[in-house]
Every structure is written in C-alpha cells, then in structure tokens.
C-alpha cells in the first residue's frame, strides 16, 4: 500500500482485553480516502471491539491511532466526532423513548437563538434526509421503539450520514434490512465513497464485501489474519482466511 499518500486512518498495534480475554490482539489496519475497507471474521472475532476503539466507545489498552498522519487521542465518542468519525453501531444505539429527529440530532441538537432545542427544524431536516435515504419512512412523531428493525437501522444510518462524516464506521449496517433497503445502502456506500469518505464496513456477507469493498481485513480470535485487495482474491480465498485463519499464498 505505498504511493497513496497518507492514510485517513491508521490504527497501529491496537490491543484491548476484557478481564483476561484478548478481544483485540495487536491489530493494525488502515483506511484511505474514497476507500471501503471490509472487516470480516467469525462471531466474537473482535471486529466490533476494534472499531469501538476508533469511535471512542472503548479505549485501547495499547496501540496508536493516526488520523491524516497525525497521532490522535480518542478518549470518548465526543473526541471521535471532533475528528469527523461517525459510527453506525451493531446495536444501533438509539434512545427508544425519543423520536427519529431527537435520535438523529442527539448530542448535536439544533438550537434556536435563545438556546432552546429547535424540534421543528430538526424534524424538518430529518424529513429531508430520510426522504433521500428511505422515502417510505413515515413515523416521524413516534418514539423509535415503535419502529421496525429496518426503520431503526435507517435512522441510525441517517444519523451517521447527516453530519458530513469523513470517516464512516458501519457495523453490519444491513443486518436488519430487506433486499431493497440493502440495495439502497449499497448505493449509498458507493455514493459516499465517490464523495471521498473512508468507510470501515463490518459485514458477514462475502458477496457484499466483494461488491463494495476495495480491501478486506480478516480477524480471527482477536488477531488480524491479513488484509487483501479484494480484486486480487476470490471469495473462496476470503472464506479460507475467515475459517482457517490463513492468508492465501498468492496474495501474501
């Protein structure tokens, strides 16, 4: 990966353990502007934990993060947002009792000149972005607990997209989506990529990875098996990496 300038994100030698279990064990990955990097691995491989170190949900026990070549200190989600890092969590991380607009703007509310939250304007903005991402979405007044899994997912996606992220982390963004909505997310990823965002995409569907990603990093038991250029390998190669934990000979 030389000759491409400075990476947008570089995570170097990241380790984190939860009481003895090494959830992430000396993993290094990077991401360039306009690139989609797939993150694969069996359940419990450490994918979510790794990207949570980038999104500020966890703090790594060891290792360093560089953003645009500069060392970054990310202690909490606020720090990550300051680096224009947006995250769609696997658990979606929505407040069930609030409506879509309140969730979309949570932590970054629009306010009136008097310093009061401007619900009407936030709802209008939410209607706008949802009109683009999921035109069938109608439930703007209900708390998100009244939404279907897919509708909740589109709220989470809208939240990540709305704030002009430069670095987007998507942890299984299509897990609850129907085929049509999944297709829409795929198109969205390609559009964001054209706009120059860097995207980490955690995904179990190898075909989606082959379609959408430029590179794929595979993890097993907290360790990085390897990173491959997707156009240089077959899906069987990647499957082999996930199951056997070995990098295919030709791509090494």
């Amino acid at each position: 990966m030389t000759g491409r300038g400075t990476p947008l994100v570089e995570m170097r030698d990241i380790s984190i353990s939860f009481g003895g279990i090494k959830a992430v064990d000396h993993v290094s990955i990077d991401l360039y502007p306009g690139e989609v990097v797939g993150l694969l691995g069996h359940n419990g491989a450490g994918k979510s934990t790794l990207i949570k170190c980038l999104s500020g949900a966890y703090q790594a026990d060891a290792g360093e993060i560089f953003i645009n070549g500069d060392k970054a200190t990310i202690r909490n989600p606020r720090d990550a947002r300051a680096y224009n890092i947006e995250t769609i969590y696997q658990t979606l991380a929505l407040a069930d009792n609030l409506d879509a607009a309140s969730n979309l703007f949570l932590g970054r509310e629009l306010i009136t000149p008097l310093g009061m939250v401007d619900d009407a304007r936030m709802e209008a903005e939410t209607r706008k972005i949802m009109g683009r991402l999921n035109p069938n979405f109608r439930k703007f007044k209900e708390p998100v607990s009244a939404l279907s899994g897919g509708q909740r997912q589109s709220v989470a996606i809208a939240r990540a997209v709305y704030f002009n992220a430069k670095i987007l982390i998507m942890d299984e963004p299509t897990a609850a989506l129907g085929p049509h909505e999944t297709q829409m997310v795929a198109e969205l990823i390609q559009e964001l990529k054209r706009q120059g965002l860097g995207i980490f995409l955690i995904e179990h569907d190898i075909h989606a990875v082959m379609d959408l990603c430029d590179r794929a990093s595979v993890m097993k038991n907290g360790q990085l098996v390897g990173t491959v250029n997707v156009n240089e390998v077959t899906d069987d190669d990647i499957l082999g990496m996930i199951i056997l934990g070995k990098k295919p000979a030709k791509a090494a």
Partner: protein
Amino acid sequence: MSDPASHTHPEGRRGLIQILDIDTRLLGMVGAFVVICAAFQIWTGIRALPDFSWNPFAWIGAGRFLVPQNTFNIAVQTVSVAIMAAGMVFVIVTRHIDLSVGSLMALCSATMAVFQTEFMPKTLGLGLEHPLTAPLAVLLGILVGAAVGAFQGWLIGYQRIPSFIVTLGGLLIWSRVAYFVAGGQTIGPLDGTFLMLGGTNGTLGVGLSWALAAIAALGAGWALWSSRRAKLHHGFPVKPVWAEVTLIGIVVGLIAGFTAIINSNMVPPARLKRLFDARGEVMPEGYTEAYGIPISVLLLIIVALLLTVMALRTRLGRYIFATGGNPDAAELSGINTRLLTVKIFALMGGLCGLSAAVASARLSNHSLDIGTLDELRVIAAAVIGGTALAGGFGTVYGAILGALIMQSLQSGMAMVGVDAPFQNIVVGAVLVLAVWIDIQYRKRRGIKV
C-alpha cells in the same frame, strides 16, 4: 392510524380527544382527582347535613371539602412535596432513585433555621429581622441541598455506586446531621420575611392574583399559538383552529377557576384586626380581605414551568430523557452521562432546599420531624404522576398532580375522621393501584416499557 386503542373506545369520544391532542394519561389523572374531590365533597356534605335525605345536590352543597378555605389549605400543603416530586421525575427518568430527599430537606431546614436564629443575629450581630436574612437563608438552603446532591451524584455517576445505596446511606446520614446542626431541638420562631414562603403569611392578595392569572392565561395562549405557527412554518400537520381555540379556552378556564376559588378564601376577621392593630390603625367596620394566591404556590408554578421548559426545550432535558431511554446510546452520542448524573442530583438537592424553606416557613419553625417519610411521598407522587421506574418517561405536571392527589386524599380522610394508620393503608393501596392502572393503560396503547 394503526393504534390498537382505536378498537377499545367509541369513535366519537376518541376522535375529540385525539383532535384536541390531549395526553389521555393526564386526562385519566385529572379524572381520578375529580372523583376524589367529589367523593369527599359528598361525604363531608352528608355528615354536615342535620338529617339525612336522598338529595345529592344538598350533599354537594353542604360539603366542606371544596370550600375555598380547604382548597387553599390543600394547595399550600401540597407545595413542599410537589417541588421535590418535580425534581424526582428527572432522577427516576434516568433510572435512578433518591431516597435521601426527606433527610436532605431536614438538613437544609436545620441549616436555614440556625442561620436565621443564630448566625445572622448573633454571630454577625445583625439582629433579628434583618432584611437580608430571608433571601440569604433561602439561598443557603438551596446551596446546601445542591452541594449534598452533587456529592451524592458524584458517588453515583463517577464512582458507580448504585443510587439506591448512596441515597439510602444519605437517608440515614443527613437526618442525623440535621439533628446535630439543630442541636436536637425545635428552632424558632423564624424570620418574619422568611415566613412569607409558608402560605397564609405570604399571599398576593386579590388584585395581584388576578393579574398573575391574566399573565398565565396570556402566556399559555401564546405558547399554544406559537407552537402552532412553528408547525405551520415547517409544513407539519396542525389541529383545526376550533380545536386549538377550545384547548386554549379550557386552559384559560382552569386558570380563572382556580384563581376565583382561591380569591374567595377570606382572611378571618380576628386575624385582620390583629394586622390593623399591629400597624396602629383601626379596622373599618365591615372590612374584609381575601388571601389571594399564596407565594408558595406561585413558587411551585414557577418551578414547574422552569423544569418543564428544561425537560422539553433544552439540551439538558433532552439528554436526561435520552439517558433514561438508553444510557449506552446516550454515552455513544457523546453525552457525558456521569456529569449529567451529578447535575440531576444537584438539581434534586437544590429543590430539597427550596422545599425545606417552604415547609419550615409553613410550620413557622424548624421541627425535628420535618421531612420524615417525605421521600416516600415524593416518590409516590412522581410515580402516581406517570413517571416510569424503568426510566425514560415522566412529566413534571404529572408529578405535581400526583402530589396534589395524595394530599387531597390525606386531607379528605383527615376531614372525615379516618384514623392516621388507616390513611397510610389507603395511600399505599392507591400507589399500587395507580401503577397497575398505568401498566394496563400502556399495554392497551401498545407502549412497551
């Protein structure tokens, strides 16, 4: 509308309530309150009549419960618990509990009493009834409450000790600290200006009360209209104009009705005569005067308004509800939930201080048992008022209505001669019943909690 409730109500009634967009839960509470008032009015009416007759109008007419004086008293007695219940809403919404409010209130009361009777007059040598005594005392009470609350909030938020444990410790600790601060005795009489917070000693009089009612009515009307205008501006659906006007009419009617009742509570002639004597004047023949709205009730209204605005219109409020709905999501959205916990408990503590001022001013001294069992009344008021213990839901006006319902029940039972132990049995049963009804209501509406 795929609302399951549409199958359980006759179309017409549901339609009206839905068009008016009134919170049906609030309506239920108001209904319960009306039933309680009517029941005690009739009960006291039957007892007041010289001989029994089957005439409901005579019962209601002779009732002693809804007379201006009793309405006034219940309003005054509700304030102290209601102020704390308003704060408890936010504590419970964020999935915490505060068992220390009664004890903390006693500590604030003791501190304020010592400040008024010892520190200002003796230590500083400013004498009794110094004009600064009352405002400084109230400020001190609020600060002590907020500081203790913030400390408890720090233990809960940053040290991760469950709020139940921290405030259970606080319940035991602060009441004892209050005992030592007060030197184990009742402290009084308190400063004259300070006593104005208590009720009968500080009222607005008829003219100011009506002025206040007018301001409140205009404010409510303006708030409803401007929210309609904001909706129209963004092209959102709005209620029909007649519905909006009806709603404003109901609100204005309630404000006017309450003011009229309170304003017809007359000051007893003996008391008036004493007031004139104290000023060295002679009371004119046939002179009468009404109390008007008590300052303490005004205080409660201001607290309720500020906290409601905070809940619905500020970031702090939004973060409180988000944290209650999903603490992890709030944290991941960049909300500092630990600091938020400190703020909420500091607010709760500050309200304990304010409540202590009202309560000790009403009793006109700091008594040793002030605040005892108030934590239970406060929590019960918030819960009867619809605050969900699972977190995420609750309203300030609900909690205040809850406090009012409890106080009405207790006053009513005392009036009809129900023994104190039996009163507790009834209040306890009402609490459990209220939560059960709430669960049924949410089930029917398909709200998961």
